[in-house]
């Protein structure tokens, strides 16, 4: 007899470990619209399989709960069944010895609260109000509804120009999105059920970079209608593109020196090179869109005048003001906002950061953009102060990693307390207070002060990257409804009781992603066209290839690689390497073609025109 032995896993346990991973990925790609009670019943059933069997509430109660939930689903339950479910779940929650039991019961209790309407529909009316109507995960999660399986199939056939044409049907900024889209399309990719989501953004970039110049489609016959677009960012450009295609006369009014909005004044060149942005904007303008630069609405021309001069107006002014934080000493010299720095950088002005010691407050992508820009401007030391943990940052993980690789330091779990200044009122340092991560009231844990003294970190320049606001005052004065600086537009982009005036993008929903801004421009274009009495249809003649018939063998996802940090930190060249042809072919062949296999072939599938 040996006294101790090494634990080895048997084949069944090894297999189960694989299945756990399978299940995790399956849940990731769960489509929206499923019956929440049905899902919950199956979660409880799985939880019941996890029970050790020692305690009666968990061993017996979870099974009873599954049966009762099944009764609800089968239309055999009454409202007293619901009471029994609640009573049972409460007892299991209160009396189970360990989390296997009480956490499972808690799911049910939360479900009773959260799916109240669903329970009542099932019990009282014998029907389920859930409906799967989004059959293709990537398309339905793309705010602009870009035909992802379609263009991936085109890429795998080497038809890159067709891929670009297909993308432009729903999104006129494919080159921009190929580089900087936050790719919500990838989140619930069904390929997760096999291995990992498709690298959709990377493939889009590959298509754009290999397509050569793809001219815009021919304009539809001129309508003689005029539309003013206020703001030449992604939303305004998108609306301008589609409205112009539809045959309307479009004029863009831009406050700054150049078009592009946050694409130019928010996103650094090393992520979106200016020549690519300029090319894309020029392609859009090639439709014959007139541009008025450096026109400030309310100052150079009144909104009223624009409204009078045009048949319709689309307001897409973005969110370009900085937000402040209340911190002792904030009137000190040497404090600036991320928005200022990135705007100057966008216009090519000198930033004067060389050799400086910079501290940035914030944890979003903008904070990372400033940090990495500062390194490229020759800042000596760049530190990002963030009050939660690094994993809690809203910045994309690869942005944080990129910044760290380029020599930026992340000081997480610190909150700024007080600014230290020298005799000339120039900033000399920042007092920061250590935090400990705390409770999770909803989705993110709240940090609280740790029981330690504040510490002083020296700095020459403090940059606040704590969010952006909207400069909507001049519109509010002219009767446009505004709430907390955001313009109040309906979901169809119109403004209540002001016919012919539409708004969208960051100025309506606050700082968000480029693809949401593009989508808002598309929605506005469609509804402005209808408002003007037309129903122009946007479509493309690109024929989508038949899906490949092949087994779907697990295969790693091709991720994008970056240039060496030590090399890229001293220039503004694009950081990210493109996919190679070999990689693009492998990656595009991983697409499961949900437009053909699954519900997409029947309902909620491809939208060929809009």
């Amino acid at each position: 007899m040996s006294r101790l032995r090494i634990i080895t896993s048997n084949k069944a346990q090894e297999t189960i470990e694989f299945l756990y991973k399978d299940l995790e990925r399956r849940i990731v790609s769960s489509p929206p619209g499923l019956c929440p009670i049905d899902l919950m019943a199956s979660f409880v059933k799985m939880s019941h399989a996890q029970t050790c069997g020692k305690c009666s509430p968990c061993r017996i109660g979870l099974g009873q709960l599954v049966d009762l939930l099944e009764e609800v689903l089968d239309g055999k339950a009454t409202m007293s069944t619901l009471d029994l479910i609640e009573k049972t779940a409460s007892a299991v929650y209160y009396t189970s010895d360990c989390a296997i039991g009480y956490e499972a019961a808690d799911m049910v209790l939360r479900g009773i609260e959260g799916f109240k309407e669903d329970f009542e529909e099932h019990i009282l009316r014998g029907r389920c109000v859930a409906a799967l109507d989004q059959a293709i995960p990537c398309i339905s999660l793309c705010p602009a509804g870009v035909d992802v399986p379609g263009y991936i199939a085109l890429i795998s056939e080497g038809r890159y120009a067709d891929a670009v044409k297909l993308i432009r049907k729903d999104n006129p900024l494919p080159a921009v999105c190929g580089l900087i889209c936050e790719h919500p399309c990838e989140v619930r990719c069904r390929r997760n059920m096999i291995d990992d989501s498709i690298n959709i953004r990377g493939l889009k970039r590959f298509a754009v970079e290999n397509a050569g110049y793809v001219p815009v489609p021919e304009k539809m016959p001129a309508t003689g209608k005029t539309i003013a677009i206020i703001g030449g960012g992604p939303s305004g450009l998108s609306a301008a593109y589609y409205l112009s295609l539809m045959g309307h006369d479009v004029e863009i009014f831009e406050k700054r020196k150049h078009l592009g909005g946050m694409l130019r004044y928010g996103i650094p060149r090393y992520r979106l090179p200016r020549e690519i942005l300029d090319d894309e904007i020029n392609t859009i303008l090639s439709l014959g869109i007139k541009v008025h630069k450096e026109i400030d609405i309310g100052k150079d021309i009144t909104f009223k005048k624009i409204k009078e001069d045009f048949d319709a107006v689309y307001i897409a002014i973005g969110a370009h003001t900085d937000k402040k934080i209340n911190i002792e000493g904030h009137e000190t010299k040497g404090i600036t906002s991320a928005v200022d720095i990135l705007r100057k950088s966008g216009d090519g002005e000198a930033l004067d950061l060389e050799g400086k010691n910079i501290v940035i407050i914030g944890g979003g992508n903008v904070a990372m953009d400033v940090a990495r820009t500062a390194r490229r401007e020759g800042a000596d030391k760049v530190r990002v102060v963030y009050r939660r943990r690094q994993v809690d940052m809203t910045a994309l993980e690869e942005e944080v990693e990129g910044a760290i690789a380029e020599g930026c330091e992340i000081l997480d779990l610190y909150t700024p307390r007080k600014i230290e200044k020298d005799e000339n009122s120039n900033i000399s340092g920042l007092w920061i207070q250590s935090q400990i991560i705390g409770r999770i009231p909803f989705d993110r844990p709240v940090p609280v002060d740790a029981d330690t003294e504040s510490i002083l970190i020296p700095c020459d320049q403090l940059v606040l990257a704590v969010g952006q606001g909207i400069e909507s005052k001049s519109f509010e004065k002219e009767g446009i409804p505004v709430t907390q600086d955001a313009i109040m537009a309906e979901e169809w982009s119109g403004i209540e009781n002001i016919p012919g005036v539409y708004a969208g993008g960051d100025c309506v929903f606050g700082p968000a992603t480029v693809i949401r801004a593009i989508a808002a421009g598309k929605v506005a274009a469609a509804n402005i066209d209808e408002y003007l009495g037309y129903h122009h249809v946007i479509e493309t003649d690109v024929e989508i290839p038949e899906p490949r018939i092949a087994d779907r063998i697990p295969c790693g996802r091709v991720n994008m690689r970056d240039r060496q940090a030590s090399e890229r930190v001293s220039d503004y060249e694009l950081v990210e390497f493109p996919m190679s042809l070999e990689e693009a072919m492998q990656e595009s062949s991983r697409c499961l073609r949900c437009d053909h296999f699954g519900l997409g072939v029947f309902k909620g599938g491809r939208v060929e025109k809009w």
Partner: protein
Amino acid sequence: MVKLTINNQEISVPEHTTIMEAAEMLNIFIPNLCYLKDLNEIGACRVCVVEVEGVSRLVTSCNNAVSEGMVVTTNSPKVRASRKTNVELILSQHDARCATCVRSGNCSLQEISNDLGIIDNPYKENIPLAHWNDDFPLIRDYEKCIKCMRCIEICDKIQGLNVWDMSKTGSRTTVDVSHNRRIEEADCALCGQCITHCPTAALRERDDTDRVYEALGTKDKITIVQIAPAVRAAWGEDLGLPREFATVKRLVAALRKIGFDYIFDTNFAADLTIMEEGSEFLQRLGDKENQKWPMFTSCCPGWVRFINTQYSDMVDQLSTAKSPQQMFGAIAKTYYARLLGVDPDRIFSVSIMPCTAKKYEAGVSVMADAGSGQDVDVVLTTREIDRMIRAEKINPALLEEEEFDTPLGEGTGAAVIFGATGGVMEAALRSAYYLVTGENPDPDAFEDVRGREGWREASFDLAGSKLKVAIASGLGNTRRLIEAIRSGEASYDFVEIMACPGGCAGGGGQPIEDGKELAGVRMDVLYGLDTVADLRFSHENPSVIKCYEDFLGAPLSARSHKLLHTNQKSWEL
């Protein structure tokens, strides 16, 4: 062209051909269930799976295209076993009590199950429970639905009414009225196209044969039956009769054997409809400026339901003329009761229709103008009368032809084409020409309105004035036409609409042959009957002329208005 091998045979087929179609070119037939060409190619039942060399999972042949060098096996052990399992699984959720099923013997599931030799099912039955209103003319039997989704597709793609949809999710997914509505509130036109495209008996008409048997067995009742034009082109299909043998006169003989007292022809009333509707059209034309145009035909109750729910502001553009069925009903319980010298309450009026919406129409509360209950007491579909013939063990192959009774058994060639899309328009134009000019046109002068396209238009010269007409069949086409009228893209004087593609010939009450669209061949039969008819003008129908002389007076007379016209706005839905 794409070269591939199927079951060791090589073939070259055009690009985009499906595996199933390529196999058919080699006379290799792949079992399938949910598939309907062009309409439902969604691979839901997974019965048509085949094996493709180099691919371990099986592939549906109905909706996957061939590719160069593909090697396909349609009957490998893996295919056979998987296909059979899938049919067994479908059967486990299907009420397979075939002995009491209306589609027994004409059921694609039964056929494939028998073909695959399934004599025992290893799976426990798990049949969904749900309730349906059995009084509604359209019956859904959830226990028989195999979720092929065809009803959803036909209603979405062809009829554009989106009555059906998938309902519930997960294991309880079924097909039901869309948006969690009840059928009564779903704007269903009752066209019955979902029934004729259902592979099983999950959808059927309300069976009203018992009410007819009861009347036949009631001594005091005088049973009168009318046969709609399109029924004669189809009734033999369910009984295995060749089309040329299954004449309407043999159907008359069968109905006499069943025991109906008087057997009449809806054609009589169709001619009457032309007199009324044609006169109404000319009357409106005389007052052109004050009328809304176009005038629409009104004889299709599916269409009337459609316009009432979808374009209620246009209902007054319908001709006020009742449909032939309802004109017949009103005449039977007035004029004919008088001819027989009987109390009209004794008359039990039955109609045999290619249609499910006619069941609704007969039940509309204002369709009781004769004053003796509903003008038409019971409507039977072509399928139901075929079932009655079978129930009586009448051997249709031995039937001799028999004549209709008179005078309501008399009809013209203009009436018989009512059963085909464009027929009402053509019949109306023939008589309108006569009414305006006083002389008959060439009976085929208006043949431009014939055809199978879903939306057709034609122009004619009517005594110097230009007439622009249009015809649509199928409600999706109808919607396109109406939208074009409303947007000003199209304008017409007179428009004929039939809810079913091809008109009544393709009606939702007609016999079902799964996978086949038979409207076209049935239309050919009807146009053939018109060509050989002695009389080809409604205004020449002697019984109609006599009916006006002895009873109605003239078209659009006060009595005509009371008995033969209606305000469709007052129809409850």
